[in-house]
């Protein structure tokens, strides 16, 4: 069997996956280090009848994909740092209106313009809480091209299943590293289609009345069900409401539909964790360094293991707790000042055994950054 092997960068793997998942519409704005996604899609999308538009700014790009999603399309935008900040209000609109969409954030150094061409993982909490108000969100990440592909398809699937924006939190290293990508055959990875309403013309369609399983079948704008979509709190018709009971129900629906499916959404990869005394918890490109350390130490007979997180939000509580409990030490490896560290501490049996190995200066985290922390933990000095 001929295998379709490509040599691409992470941004290209993301593009291939989005097309595999059925992307119809992309709106974006140029920003480093995510720009290749827009460039590639401007070329690829019209070839299959899809639409690409370069909007006037980051905000407009986010708004345009929401509009296109409501007409029944699979949609995506991609950005980095400052652009992700600008998109936040509209991401909240997608949360509130339950509009499926995928937002790629290729993280770069921040705050502000920061380090446009350098790596960082500083947007983990922004992905969770960037838009205002209580809400839930799904965020996925990946450490290599094959996983970028898998997670991108998964992002579209979760977005359609839960009718929610899904954030793909990549980083500069993953986005720009050129490496092998084995292109999955059509049908090899399951692709979720949009759930459309079965309500017939002439019968009242309630766009915001959840079914028993909590899901909301959609009707495309332009089809025969005419309804209202609003960023205000709304009733089952999509009409604004300040009725406390309706608001309470809606808030719970928006949060519970995601938090209540944490197990289903959680995705982790485990490397030599079963007997690990030292457990490294990492994600994104940092996990590549962590894996290197694990393999090296194992060769010396030291029981290191790696728990790589592929879903960050909702936080994969059970998977992390289980592995932390069994380890003597846990070291969270990330390129920020401890955004996932605190989540791990919250779920570990003993937060005092959880440590941080990080890098925040724009350079890629090195094995020595992890080993130096290990030496301190073991009382061997820095």
């Amino acid at each position, binding site marked *: 069997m001929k295998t379709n092997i490509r040599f691409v960068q992470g941004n290209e793997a993301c593009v291939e996956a989005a097309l595999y998942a059925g992307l*119809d*519409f992309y*709106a974006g704005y140029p920003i480093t280090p995510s720009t290749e996604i827009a460039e590639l899609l401007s*070329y690829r999308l*019209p*070839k*299959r*009848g899809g*639409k690409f*538009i370069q*909007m*006037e*700014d980051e*905000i*407009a*790009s986010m*708004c*345009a*994909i*929401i*509009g*296109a*999603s*409501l*007409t029944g*399309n699979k*949609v995506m935008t991609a950005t980095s740092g400052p652009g992700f900040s600008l998109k936040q*209000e*509209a991401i909240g*609109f997608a949360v509130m209106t339950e509009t499926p969409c995928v937002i790629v954030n290729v993280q770069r150094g921040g705050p502000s313009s920061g380090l446009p061409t350098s790596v960082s993982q500083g947007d983990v909490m922004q992905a969770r809480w960037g838009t205002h108000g209580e809400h839930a969100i799904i965020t996925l990440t990946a450490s290599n091209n094959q996983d970028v592909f898998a997670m991108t398809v998964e992002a579209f699937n979760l977005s359609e299943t839960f009718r929610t924006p899904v954030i793909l939190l990549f980083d500069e290293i993953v986005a720009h590293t050129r490496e092998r990508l084995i292109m999955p055959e059509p049908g090899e990875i399951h692709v979720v289609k949009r759930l459309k309403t079965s309500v017939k013309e002439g019968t009242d369609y309630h766009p915001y009345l959840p079914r028993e399983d909590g899901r909301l079948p959609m009707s495309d*704008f*332009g*089809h*025969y069900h*005419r*309804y*209202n*979509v*609003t*960023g*205000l709190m709304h009733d089952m*018709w999509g*009409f*604004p409401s300040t009725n406390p009971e309706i608001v309470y129900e809606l808030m719970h629906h928006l949060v519970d539909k995601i938090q209540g499916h944490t197990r289903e959404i959680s995705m982790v990869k485990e490397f030599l964790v079963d007997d690990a005394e030292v457990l490294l918890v990492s994600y994104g490109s940092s996990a590549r360094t962590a894996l290197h350390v694990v393999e090296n130490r194992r060769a010396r007979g030291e029981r290191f293991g790696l728990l790589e997180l592929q879903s960050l939000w909702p936080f994969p509580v059970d998977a992390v707790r289980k592995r932390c409990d069994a380890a003597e030490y846990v070291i969270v490896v990330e390129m920020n000042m401890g955004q996932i560290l605190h989540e791990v501490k919250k779920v570990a049996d003993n937060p005092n055994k959880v440590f941080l190995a990080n890098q925040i200066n724009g350079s890629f985290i090195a094995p020595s950054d992890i080993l130096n922390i290990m030496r301190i933990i073991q009382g061997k000095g820095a």
Partner: protein
Amino acid sequence: MAVRDYIRERFFPHIWCPGCGHGTIMGSMIRAIEKLGIEKNDIVVVSGIGCSSRICGYLDFHTMHTLHGRALAFATGVKLSRPELTLLVPMGDGDAFAIGGNHLIHAARRNIDITAIIMDNNIYGMTGGQCSPSTGYGDFATTAPYRNIDRPFDLVRLAMGAGASFVARTTTYHVTSMIKILEQAITHKGFSVVQILSQCPTYFGRRNNFASAVDMIKYYKTHTTPIGSKEKEKNPDLIERGIFLQEERPEYCDEYSKIIEKASEGR
């Protein structure tokens, strides 16, 4: 069909104050659509935030009440993804000229087939009467208690300069011509901008020496004049109304379908 066939009576009463001009505009929009005979399922109305934006809930089309200033960006996504739909975007003056100014000029530049209806009452009504980019020099507002020193935009020249291919101005006094202008704007293939001067007696009128909504409507009668009239020569302060520009120009979605054709050739 009757006007009531185009509204969602279930959601009435509306939130607009007594004397507000926005209901007149909504009525005119309905009458224009009725005359054009466009199917309700083929119309998408996208609004932003403010008094004007609430029009969405009351109209029985596909309706989207979005973010402050961003209506045209959402509408661009809807239109480009489904070019066969008719897109109407009612906006307020704060919505369209201030927070959404960038989207307005770029939608105009692309000449995408959307009708922007700017319900211009010279004030931020929803938040209680702050000055907007169309509040006149010297007018009063809650954030201009001494007087407004900002100069207002000339929306007509702004829209024409940005590339809109249909530009018109009318008022809530001139309902018959408003309906006709809206018909033409909706029929026009390209980006259409219709500025409609609409009275806000509650927040603009009370602070600016208008005793009632009727006085404000009368002001539109006496202080406006058809484009190119002799009155304007005599009194340059008169505001011109009518269709300033109506031009055939390549439309964005049409242009994009050519891109799809070209891109598909090499497959």
